[in-house]
């Protein structure tokens, strides 16, 4: 029990460290530069408490359940030697982790709100559908990215070539995409890969690269996140063209 308490307080401390720079920078600007009062100050303090507690529980829970299983699974599939299952697993891992990614949930909701203000969405139900469709679009494309990343490691394709190909796709999609989706699309690349996705996907990549002969974990193990930051951009622009 005591050990758990120590682990939990460590997590709480880490989340506090995560928030501290934001609080410091904002406090400095408020007190020294702007010298204005903050409306709804109490709500914001309460909300910050929620963020702190929520983030702590979330990461504590990830370390307790999700990460050990995910990493063990990644290694099992690498060892199992079946390419088809490895690829299916790679897709499912990228998809599943992205759907639960908190930053993506937040940005998708915000994008839906803005789309409503812009008159693109009219009803409450559409608001929900817009945010959900956006998120699933991103999740599916991250799934494909991880699948592609795994294929790259196995086949030994050059990352630079894939990235150049990705850039070209992004540029082509930009030409055809409506103006109001471009910003959201570019953002979704950076949003998708954070708390849950990065550790699990990196584990899969580095595990795979170290188990295949002739692969170097440094040049081959990384790079998964890079692909997963590009494909969602293209996918969201396609979503924008179709909505």
């Amino acid at each position: 029990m005591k050990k758990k308490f120590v682990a939990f307080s460590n997590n709480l401390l880490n989340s506090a460290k995560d928030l501290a720079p934001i609080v410091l920078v904002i406090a400095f600007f408020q007190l020294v530069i702007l010298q204005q009062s903050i409306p709804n100050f109490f709500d914001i303090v309460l909300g910050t408490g929620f963020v702190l507690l929520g983030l702590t529980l979330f990461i504590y829970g990830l370390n307790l359940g999700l990460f050990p299983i995910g990493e063990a699974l990644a290694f099992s599939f690498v060892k199992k030697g079946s390419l088809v299952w490895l690829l299916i697993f790679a897709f499912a891992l990228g998809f599943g982790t992205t759907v639960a990614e908190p930053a993506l949930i937040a940005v998708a909701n915000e994008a839906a709100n803005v789309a409503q203000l812009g008159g693109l969405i009219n009803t409450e139900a559409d608001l929900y559908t817009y945010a959900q469709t956006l998120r699933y679009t991103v999740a599916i494309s991250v799934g494909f990215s991880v699948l592609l990343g795994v294929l790259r490691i196995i086949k030994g394709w050059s990352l630079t070539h894939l990235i150049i190909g990705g850039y070209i796709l992004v540029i082509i999609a930009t030409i055809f995409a409506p103006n109001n989706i471009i910003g959201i699309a570019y953002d979704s690349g950076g949003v998708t890969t954070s708390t849950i996705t990065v550790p699990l996907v990196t584990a899969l990549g580095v595990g795979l690269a170290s188990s295949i002969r002739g692969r170097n974990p440094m040049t081959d193990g990384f790079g998964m996140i890079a692909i997963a930051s590009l494909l969602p951009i293209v996918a969201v622009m396609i979503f924008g063209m179709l909505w």
Partner: protein
Amino acid sequence: MVNLLQPFIDMLVDVAPIVLVLFGFQVLILRQKIPNLKKVIIGFILVWIGLTLFIIGLEKALFPIGKIMADQLTAVSFIGESGSWENYYWVYIFAFSIGFSTTIAEPSLLAVAIKANQVSGGSIKIWPLRIVVAIGVAVGISLGSFRIVTGMPIHYFIITGYVVVLIQTYFTPKDIIALAYDSGGVTTSTVTVPLVAALGLGLASTIEGRNPMIDGFGLIAFASLFPIMSVLAYAQITNFLNRRKNNAL
């Protein structure tokens, strides 16, 4: 009461896919039992509750504060009558400070830096890498807020950025390229993203002539692109210095 429970129920739908993926593959495909099942279930419940609280807190604190900062930094009483872009310098300084400080403290970046240090056999140092990435994010977000202030189209910046990255890639030692590309996606954390997104939307809705839908997004894209450049530059400079030192010997 229903209102209080609703977010928890919504979030269950969000956590379900990853639970299904992990359990499904473990039990149905690999046909293995889940080790420490009790611990894992407790873990998932904590993830679920934590995610819900986080999202509630986000809407109560991080989004509003980002918008308030944008409002106050662009208020006429603060920057004066003229809406010319150089009067918004506190916006750029704020964006830089938020970008730098949150990235330095970012745990997933630290994790990647440690891993990079191990696999590179110590030639990539942890602290310089963190500082370089943080500078990249900071420059990215402040340039991104400059773009919102001026209303220039985002793809001009991003596509130029891609070209720069590709040119740099050509001149960079091969073993750092994947790491540099990854550092772009890694840096923008769960706490930073909502705040920065709110800042951008706030700027786009307070500055005259800007449309939140077209101008409000994109800060995160800048924050993901610029670290790639700064890490590639860092690799080029250390490579160059090493070579010069070796030549001198």
